[in-house]
């Protein structure tokens, strides 16, 4: 997935789950004050993101630092890169000796 596709996936998942208008999906939008989310919504937001990207994030410390929609974008992008790097490493490790 490209960064743009990741951001679009996040925005669509958030819009569908929390009935948000496309116009509200600005990176600087505060999740609580601008988008109206509360602590219960944060729990469901994690489930929505896990389902959208097939990754476990519930226990990630960085989740607790998320305040804006842009923070979610950045968190998922970082997580995506981290997983991609691990995957590359695993592929290299499994390649084995060539001679």
């Amino acid at each position: 997935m490209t960064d743009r596709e990741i951001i679009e996936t996040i925005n669509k998942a958030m819009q569908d789950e929390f009935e948000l208008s496309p116009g509200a999906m600005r990176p600087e939008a505060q999740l609580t004050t601008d988008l109206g989310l509360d602590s219960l919504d944060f729990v469901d937001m994690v489930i929505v993101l896990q389902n959208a990207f097939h990754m476990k994030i519930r226990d990630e410390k960085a989740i607790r630092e998320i305040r804006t929609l842009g923070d979610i974008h950045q968190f998922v992008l970082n997580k995506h890169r981290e997983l991609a790097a691990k995957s590359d490493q695993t592929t290299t490790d499994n390649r084995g000796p060539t001679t």
Partner: protein
Amino acid sequence: MTLRRVVVTGLGVVSPIGRGMPALMDGLVAGKSGVVNAPALSVIKDIRSRVAALAPDLDGREIPRHFRRSMSKMSIYATLACQEALLQAGLTAEHCAGGRLGVVIGSTIQSTDAIEGFFRDYLTTHAIEQMRSTLFFQIMNHSCAANVAQTLGITGRTVAPAAACATGGQTVGFGYEWIASGKQDMMLCGGADEFHPLATAVFDVVNAASTRYNDRPTMTPRPFDRQRDGVVCGEGGGIVVLEALDSARARGVPVLAELLGFATVSTPDSISNPSAGSMEECMRLALEEAKLRPEQVDYVNAHATATELGDIAESAAIHRVFGHSVPVSSLKGHLGHTMAASGAIELAATIAMLNGGRLIPTLNLDEVEPQCAPLRLPRQVESVSLRTAVKNCFAFGGINSTLVIRRDTRD
């Protein structure tokens, strides 16, 4: 202690024949049936009944997501019915927040849909990864009452009694007692339920669900009819605003009826079978509290669900108390059995009948069951002045309840 007089100042419904009191009464007068063939029932192996009385398709988006997220369908029905009833009663957000207005709303069980959704995942994964934060709020036993209180900003007492099909009758009765004793000035009373195929299955397995009219759904249920074959499960929400008479007078709002008496009794004879003796006792106790003689009652709105035993037992009980001259009808023929909502929906319709001067007959009653005691069962809409009425609600669990109402407050 001097008991305060209690009146009705607002009504609200979501029923299988429409949302709102005007749709309900127009449908009842027109002889409309809310029963349809329900495809959802075909997924259950071996079930024989394929009919249900479904509420109109409401997505509830007029309720803000913040409140709606913790609601299953039954809470949406209850909330919309409450909003209609509050509007008619002229009660505002200020009244809701004042501590003198409470909520007493129950359901038969919690949302089976919500539970099924959770277990569909859990029984496969044995993990809680997919458990939404709001699941519990949809399945807790006081879900309807709590969701209504949250949405409407109600700070008075919030209570959720459950007595299956007698829930709607009991909630109105309890609200009446709390206002009469001065604990609250106003109460939103009623019940709500949502259809799930397993509700029909429950009646099907005990041979109490309608099975012979799957291809002619509007011809069932058939209360008091010789060809009746059981219950048609339904859904909806019914709400009655009860208020102290002095409060209603001080606010200058119209009184729709006075609640004169309430009784609820149980019969330990059987958890499933009706008891004519207990039904009779319940009606006599309610009349005694209302200080009315049976001949002073103009109409009985029966519980009659079209089961083989229940209609016969209720007819016997009504006959013993009232004889054969008082008109009796059941609205289950139009509405199916809306379970916990039925008592309040049918009470609301009865109050509208008193105020409108029109008696609604039993839909699908063509030939009276010969084993029923002789009752006056009207066959068509009658334009008639009705002042007092009795509403019966009987339930699995051996629970019976009766309410007595009068159109006006003249002694």
